[in-house]
């Protein structure tokens, strides 16, 4: 019998064997890029609250094929949902901020234009968004309306053939650097309620001041969008979709990315803690030699494995066209919740070093506080699952 090769401590269950060579190649190229281009700098970006040359970085992400990678045509790479998930996991293992940049560009802004835009919208924006020449953002949340976007106050008025937008959006990723904003506004009953608009950010009346003082997702631009009588031509609106279905269809895409992404932050934290526990000695032996430490490591590894299996299962369903939004809720709820627990538990293994930006854990942990909240809070996904189980809607 040939001797068995040692078990990979970060893939105890052998989940890698469920991936094709091509899927591994996709993951490998993303990892190699991040190791060189982002990993060495990201702690500093986080500390300063600013990504150096974010436009240049976005173009490099585009050159690799990461932007809108799971969309077809218009210069997009046309990859599978599993490929996209694997890429999100690697991105977030580096930093949730960089993953957010990619998610919002591809799954929110580009997806919205691809799915709901006119042929003209698609031709005008998607090719340059795929290369990263143009950056997009997605404005749904408002200062006073988060989990309940149906009550939004941003208004779209018909003036002649044009549309005029007034209102404000809050917590908008990529807002201040965006060239184009997908903005959701209430057009009134007679025009179908909530409608989506493609807004070039150089339109008069549009501004996007950056939100400061964040202690989470610091390597990501988050902004307010101010819409002060922004006048748009009549064809700026998504022609067909009406109501919350529009934005929710996009959110379901981005949430799917988080199902995978959050595990990246968890994997990075757990691996850091595992290595640290082997090297660090107290009471004359490595931390890894204490049963309490091993208990922590084993518990975290179990949750990581389960989360990965769930992500892959949902990914295969998405590729088969059978994925339901409620199933995305299952994935997001479980994986973000377990990921943040893994980060917190990992942090304890590093003791004081755990709170230092010299190690990635506290950064991941703080980042995941945002991920816990955006794309539907943990509470909202719980209620979605509750409704699916009982038929009772508990959030209204």
């Amino acid at each position, binding site marked *: 019998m040939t001797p068995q090769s040692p078990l990979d401590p970060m893939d105890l269950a052998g989940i890698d064997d469920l991936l094709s060579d*091509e899927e591994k190649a996709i993951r490998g*190229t993303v990892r190699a*890029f991040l190791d060189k281009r982002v990993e060495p700098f990201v702690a500093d970006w986080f500390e300063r609250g600013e990504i150096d040359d974010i436009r240049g970085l976005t173009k490099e992400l585009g050159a*690799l*094929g990461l932007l809108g990678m799971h969309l077809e045509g218009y210069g997009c790479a046309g990859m599978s949902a599993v490929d996209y998930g694997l890429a999100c996991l690697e991105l977030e293992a580096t930093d949730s901020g960089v993953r957010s940049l990619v998610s919002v560009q591809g799954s929110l802004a580009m997806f919205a234009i691809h799915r709901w835009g006119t042929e003209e919208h698609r031709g005008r924006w998607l090719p340059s968004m795929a290369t990263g020449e143009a950056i997009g953002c997605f404005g749904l949340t408002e200062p006073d309306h988060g989990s309940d976007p149906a009550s939004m106050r941003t208004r779209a008025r018909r003036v002649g053939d044009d549309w005029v937008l007034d209102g404000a959006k809050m917590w908008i990723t990529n807002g201040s650097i965006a060239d184009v904003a997908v903005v959701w506004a209430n057009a009134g009953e007679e025009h179908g309620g909530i409608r989506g608009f493609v807004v070039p950010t150089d339109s008069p009346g549009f501004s996007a001041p950056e939100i400061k003082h964040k202690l989470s997702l610091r390597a990501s631009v988050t902004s307010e969008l101010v819409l002060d009588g922004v006048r748009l031509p009549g064809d700026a609106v998504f022609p067909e979709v009406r109501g919350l279905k529009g934005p929710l269809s996009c959110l379901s895409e981005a949430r799917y990315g988080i199902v995978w992404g959050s595990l990246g932050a968890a994997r990075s934290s757990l691996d850091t803690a595992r290595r640290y526990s082997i090297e660090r000695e107290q009471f004359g032996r490595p931390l890894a030699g204490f049963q309490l430490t091993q208990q922590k490591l084993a518990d975290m590894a179990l949750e990581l494995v389960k989360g990965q299996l769930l992500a892959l299962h949902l990914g295969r369903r998405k590729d088969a066209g059978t994925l339901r939004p409620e199933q995305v809720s299952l994935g997001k709820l479980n994986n973000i919740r377990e990921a943040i627990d893994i980060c917190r538990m990992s942090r304890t293994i590093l003791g004081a070093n755990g709170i230092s930006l010299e190690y990635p854990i506290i950064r991941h942990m703080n980042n995941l506080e945002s991920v816990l909240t955006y794309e539907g809070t943990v509470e909202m996904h719980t209620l979605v699952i509750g409704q699916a189980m009982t038929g009772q809607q508990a959030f209204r």
Partner: protein
Amino acid sequence: MNIVVCVKYVPDAQSDRTFNESDNTTDRVGVDGLLSELDEYAVEEALKLVEAGEGEVTVVTVGPDQAADALKKALQMGADKAVHVKDDAIHGSDAVATSLVLAEAIKKTGTPDLVITGMASTDGTMSVVPAMLAERLGLPQVTFASELSVDGSTVTIRRDGDAASETIVATLPALVSVTDQINEPRYPSFKGIMAAKKKPVEEWALADLGIDASQVGLDAAWTKVESFTKRPPREQGQIVTDDGDGGTKLAEFLAAQKFV
């Protein structure tokens, strides 16, 4: 312009590298391997030349089954086609035999305008294959290029030495080996990864190249690894306690190691 790039499949330097106990050759089977990083520069340079003009990039490797991974990586980066020479008889070949196999394989692909190689492999690090190969192909050899340009029928390179940088011009066809200063190798893009699946990979055995098994392999090798020992574990560093004379002790240490 048609370019052939020679690439090697080497054990990943990140993982443990070993020799086979039985014949003292590098273990390429039981370990993770990849396209030699130094060859990525050669692939990148070839791709840049072809992208700026026209022509094709063919990558050639001599190695075991797993060496197909090195070819695949080069195809994913953008090379047009690949040639894999594999034959059990090649196992244990030294640089002399390897250059013979490469030379015959390159001849069989046609007449390239340029043959590009890395400056060394990351496992053997001998740097002699490029020169031997040029000799066998009867091509001018311009090695260790840190800059390369092609103008009509000539290739110009810069070679950086300790004392001076030389500019060397050779007529095409020629063989150039490139250093890790010459460019920044690209990452395979998603499109490149997808496209690589459809690119042709030829597999040739020694018989296809008219080479007799007795000319290659361990028995024909001019050099042989007699024995090897594992690298000793790293020794613990020396800890100097500062009793007020830490600076002096540090200076003494540096002087003893001839650093100052």
